[in-house]
Each structure stands twice: as structure tokens, then as C-alpha cells.
């Protein structure tokens, strides 16, 4: 098992840092899957511990100038590592003006993902800092636990309003209740609602776009099902804290954020920024 990569472009370093930063705000420990073409950050929580799934996909060619991978075997040319994204963020903290970052899989006191950062100096000397981030190598028999989550049939697909606006709304609602009801229809309307014994607050968004469903986001409009009413709202009750955390942690400004709702099952947020995509599956909580 070998891996080494080098990021030399300052823009790539900063973009990479922001993505890792977003992830570290969302999760404490995740799995990094390294394949010849992509880096994946994966979280798959068991249902008992919340059931959140995160699937973040980074095409390596987008970031790395050098990339060498030797996986477990010829036919399974991949590496699965468990690590804390927070540690990556810390390692990247001083890398914002670095000339390059080398990332290597090493065996030191324990298996490590070593970040070697060439720091900028005023003098002609090169100054490198080395961070050895402990990782756990995941044996092949457990790989199947970290497959891309199955995307269910969604009832509604809608492009979200600006996350910053949503964040402000949700942060206020957070004080009222532990759950928020997120609902949307195929007519470009979206609604956030909290209900308590005392009060019911809802915020409505209009004139949003309902993207046409493509292969990645299958819709409920299969040929045999009757065409649903576009004004019909699909509701999902979700944990407001998790939702707020998701909105707060955003450091990349995604070009597109799509929200898919599968009634009584799951809410799926799909963030797209250049080639990087992040999928966040939040299970619906029954009332």
C-alpha cells in the first residue's frame, strides 16, 4: 500500500483546505477512500447513532499535480483510511501560502498520513513542516460498509435558496424546537417550519428552481406512477441541530445546492462546486 501526492497550486491548496474545513465542521471521524481517480470522504453512521451519511467526492486530477497510488492489490487498487478531518484542517492551517504540499502514506509510530508543507519564507531557505496525522487502515473485509449510499426515489427535487439566508432562519428556529419540518413542492416553493405547543413558525421561500431530474437524482416520476400534483408539498421532519450544523459548516460556496426529499425517509442535500460534490443524507425523524 503506497500513496503519495503533491499539490502545488495555491488555488488548489486553498480550495482543498476549504473542503476539508467544511468536512471537519460536519464530522469528527470519517473514512478517506483513495482510488486512482478520486478522493472520497465518507461517513456512514449507523441508524442508532443518527443515521447521517456523507459522501464527498474529489476528483484527484483537480487538485494533485503528482499522484501515485498503489492499493491493496492489483484488482482492488484502493486504500481506505479512517481519520479525523479536524487533524487535516490543523495541518493545513499554515499551508495557505505554501509553495507545495506533499501528502504521503507513511508508517511511523503508527500508520500516518504525512503532510509535508513547504512554508513561505522571506529568506532563500526552504522551511518545511511535517505533520504526521494518525490514521487507521480499514481492512478489506470492511470496505463494503463504505459504499456509496443508495439514492432512494425522491418525491421533490428543489434548488435551495442561499445557504446563508437559510442559516439565519434555522439558527433562530433552533431556539424553539429540536426539529424542523422541511417541505417543498415541484412548483418552486419551500417551507421551513417549527411547531411547539406555544407557537408555530414557518418561513416560506418562493420562485425556486426545480431542476430536471437526471440520472443521479431519480424522481418519483416513473412511467407507471401517476403524475403527482406539483403543488403537493413533500414534508420531512429533521433534526434541527444537524441541519444548522450543516448550514454553518459551509466554507465552500457551492454553485448549486439541491435538496431532495423522500417523504418519511430521508432528506438529501447535494452540493456541487466545480467537480467536487458533497452529498449529505439526513434521516427523517418521525414525530
Amino acid at each position, binding site marked *: 500500500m503506497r500513496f503519495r501526492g503533491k499539490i502545488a497550486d495555491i488555488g488548489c491548496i486553498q480550495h482543498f483546505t476549504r473542503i476539508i474545513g467544511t468536512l471537519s465542521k460536519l464530522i469528527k471521524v470519517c473514512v478517506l477512500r483513495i482510488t486512482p481517480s478520486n478522493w472520497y470522504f465518507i461517513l456512514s453512521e449507523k441508524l442508532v447513532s443518527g443515521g447521517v451519511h456523507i459522501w464527498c467526492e474529489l476528483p484527484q486530477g483537480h487538485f494533485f499535480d503528482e499522484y501515485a497510488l498503489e492499493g491493496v492489490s492489483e484488482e482492488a487498487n484502493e486504500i481506505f483510511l479512517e481519520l479525523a478531518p479536524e*487533524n487535516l484542517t*490543523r*495541518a493545513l*492551517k*499554515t499551508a495557505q501560502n505554501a509553495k507545495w504540499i506533499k501528502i504521503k502514506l507513511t508508517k*511511523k*509510530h*503508527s500508520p*500516518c498520513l504525512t503532510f509535508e508543507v513547504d*512554508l513561505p*519564507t*522571506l*529568506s532563500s*531557505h526552504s*522551511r*518545511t*513542516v*511535517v*505533520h*504526521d*496525522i*494518525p490514521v487507521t487502515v480499514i481492512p478489506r473485509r470492511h470496505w463494503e460498509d463504505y459504499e456509496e449510499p443508495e439514492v432512494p426515489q425522491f418525491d421533490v427535487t428543489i434548488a435551495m435558496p442561499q445557504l446563508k439566508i437559510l442559516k439565519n432562519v434555522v439558527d433562530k428556529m433552533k431556539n424553539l424546537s429540536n426539529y424542523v419540518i422541511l417541505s417543498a413542492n415541484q412548483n418552486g416553493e419551500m417551507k421551513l417550519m417549527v411547531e411547539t405547543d406555544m407557537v408555530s413558525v414557518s418561513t416560506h421561500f418562493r420562485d425556486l428552481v426545480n431542476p430536471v431530474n437526471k440520472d443521479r437524482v431519480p424522481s418519483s416520476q416513473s412511467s407507471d406512477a401517476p403524475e403527482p400534483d406539483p403543488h403537493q408539498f413533500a414534508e420531512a421532519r429533521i433534526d434541527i441541530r444537524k441541519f444548522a450544523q450543516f448550514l454553518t459548516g459551509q466554507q465552500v460556496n457551492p454553485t448549486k445546492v439541491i435538496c431532495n426529499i423522500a417523504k418519511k425517509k430521508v432528506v438529501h442535500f447535494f452540493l456541487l462546486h466545480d467537480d467536487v460534490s458533497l452529498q449529505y443524507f439526513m434521516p427523517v425523524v418521525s414525530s
Partner: protein
Amino acid sequence: MKCVIPGVNIKVFGRAIHALSKIGEELYIEPLAHGLALRTVNSSRSAYACFLFSPTFFQHYDDGTPPISDQDSDDAIRCKIAIKSCLTVFKSMSNVEKTVEKCQITLNVQKARLVFKLYCKHGIVKTHNLAFIECETLQAVFSKDMCPNQLTAQPRLLCDTVINFQSNQEEVSLIVSPEKITFKNYVDDEPDPSKVVHTALNLDPDEFDNCQIGVDTDITFCLKEFRAVLAFAEITAMPLNIKFETSGRPIVLSIDADSAFEANFVLATLAESHSQTGNSSNATTQQRTASTGSRSYASRGRLNRGRSQNQSNNYTNSNHNRFPDRNKSSNDADLMDDDFDDEILVPNIARAASVPETNTKQSHTGKAFPPCSSRSSLNTSSQDDRPSPVIQPTLHQSVLEDVHAADDDEDEDMPVPGTPPQKKFRSMFFGMSQASSAVSQETQDQNGSRSHRQVLVEDTDEEEED
């Protein structure tokens, strides 16, 4: 004492207070003929800072000693104040720098107040009257001249280095050889070192203004205080001199601004292993104790109790009625440094408890540099509550239980249960003593260890009866 700081120097003075506040909780002020000394020591007594502002730093300087009296008289007033109260005077430095035209500091003995008067723009005068406590001189014993390893660096270089370490990192190791200078984060045995990020940064000796490495070594010291020093150094933009020997010996950081002021910071370094430092230092400390010494305080003895107890006792002695929490914090520090966790069993505790006895005996013969933990030779620690009418031990109940014994001068040798065992940071700078378990073992052997174990049990019982 009366002095006036001109506007241009207020920035440095204020930043000095900020640096001191990041190290200790009390500010010791001593007007001397050759300048105003500001000193502090941190709660675990592993870091000491001293600023000496020479008379040329001030627009006007009067140290307040009567001109006729002999120089040796102890009449000069030395005082200490809570650093937090002093910090409020210079709270917003950007504001102070902009508006204050001069700052007058006077010691009002009649009213027992230290008065800071800030003369601001537009004729505004801000006066801060700070209550102080009279105390003895705080003086660390260290030497800068004999160190085989000396580095001089621009603060920028070290700041850029330190920023690479995580903010919650406690200690940093400095590994030097003539070829390269390496900073590493120090990873303790707990939590599991394989679960912790290891960070290392290499610097080329050419990056330093001066790099003299006489002995290849590896020293570990606290990052928090180091950061405070660097923050100050960066403001003054003056090169920082770093002098050190080997692990277990103090590292001295100094800034020397030609004639205007001088700043020295002494940080304890981690002893490599608990038995290693003892043998060599044993002899020297013994000699020291024999050759020095002038006055003896009854309280000295209780300071010389085992390292483990010493610390919390010091605290209670000097601070009981004001900062009961500090006791706790110092204990925490002990826990952090404690390297005996896994091996400590009853016999070891007994050994630890026997240390104080022997040390106490020694210290009755010689005073200035008691052989035990160096922090005991910190002059103030035992005595600063006696000249002061302000603090009397009144709030015993508020402090941890261990304290009861400490307040009683008579039962000096009573071990304090519940206090942490020996510290790794044993080689403090004060008194140059590196007494360690080796010393204790040796002395213990001389005196017969079994009896001491007995003593431990008895004393503990006595205390419980209290």
C-alpha cells in the same frame, strides 16, 4: 516610588504587562536604583519572567529610597498586585497607544495603593488605584553566561514556527545540532501517542542571527509561556536570545534593548527521565546548602516538603484567601506533568513522603538554596504573607483539604495526602537545584527508609484527626 513613562514607551510597557499576564497571576513590582523591575512566576512555578526598565526608559524616575540611607537597607518597598487589575490599565493597547501621552506610576504608601495615572489627549486623566500587598523580592536564580547553546533569532522566525503547532499543544521540544534546529510537538504517553498528530519543523541554522550549538540536545518546555514571550518580542521587533543547556536545565529567553529595558524569561524544561538528573546535581546542591545561608524561617521547612506537596503548599501559604482556585490549578499542572502514574504504589508514595523530611533537615542548615525542589528557594513564596497585614490565613475551609497541614508551621513534615506525586518538571531554575528521586533515594537510604514509611502513615492519621 514615582516614575513617568513617556508616550513613546507606553506601548512597550503595556505589552510587557500583557506578556507577564500570560505567564503569572501576580505582578511583583520592585523599584531599584538601576530601574523598575516587574516580575512574575507562573502557577506551577515552571516559568519566570522579569522585566527591568532602566531609568532612561522613563521621563522621570525616582525609586523612592531615601538618598542618605545605606544601600543595603531593606526599606525599599516591594509589592505585588494581581496582574488582572494591572491589565485593566492597559486593556486595549491599541487605544492606549493612540490616546495616552504619558503614564505616571506612583506608590502611595499611606493609602497602600499603587497609582497609575494615564494622561490622555484632550486633558483627560485616567487614574487607577490598585491595592497592593507588600512582599519579598521575587528572584529566580539562573545564569545566562555559561550556556553552551545560544540562539539569536528574529521573533518573526519563531512566531512563524510556533504557529504550526496546534493551539492546544502544551509543550514543544527543541532539538538542536550544529546542522539543524528542529521544533517538535512534545507528545506525552497519554493519550496514546499513536492517536496524536506529530508535527516537526526544521530550521536551517542560517536562518538564525546567531547559532552556537555547543552540545547537541533535546529540550522540552511549555508552549504557552513561549508564545507569550514571542508575542512581546514581536511587538518590540528586537532579536530574541535563547540560551540553554540540556534537558532538565532551564532555558533563558532574553531581549536586551540597549539601556532602555531588559527582559528575561526563564522556562523550566522537562527532565528526560526521573532518575537521571539526580546524581550530578546532588553534590552541587549539597555544597550549596552548606556554603550558603544566612537567615532561617520557620516556614522554610514546610516549603521543603516533598516536591509533590511543596507546590500546593506554596500556594496556600501565599495566596490562600484570595485565590483558592489556584490550588486546584496548580494541582492540575502537577497531574499533567506527573510521570509516575503507572508505577506509583505504596512504597513509592512512602519514598516521596520521605523526601521532605530529609530535605527539611538540610534546609535548616542552609537556606538560600534549599536542595529540594527549586521552587522552594523562591524567596517570596514562604514569606510574602508575613510582612503583609492584609492577608492572613482566614479562609482555610475554602481551600482544598490538603491545606490544613500547610497552614500550620509546626507539623512541617506532615505529608499532604491527595497531592500529586513527583513532577517531571523538577529541574526548576530557582536555586539551580535539580534534586530528584535519586537524591531522595540516597538520603532515604541513609536515614533508613522503613522508618519513614512509618512516619507517612502516622502523619496521615494525624491529619485526618485535624
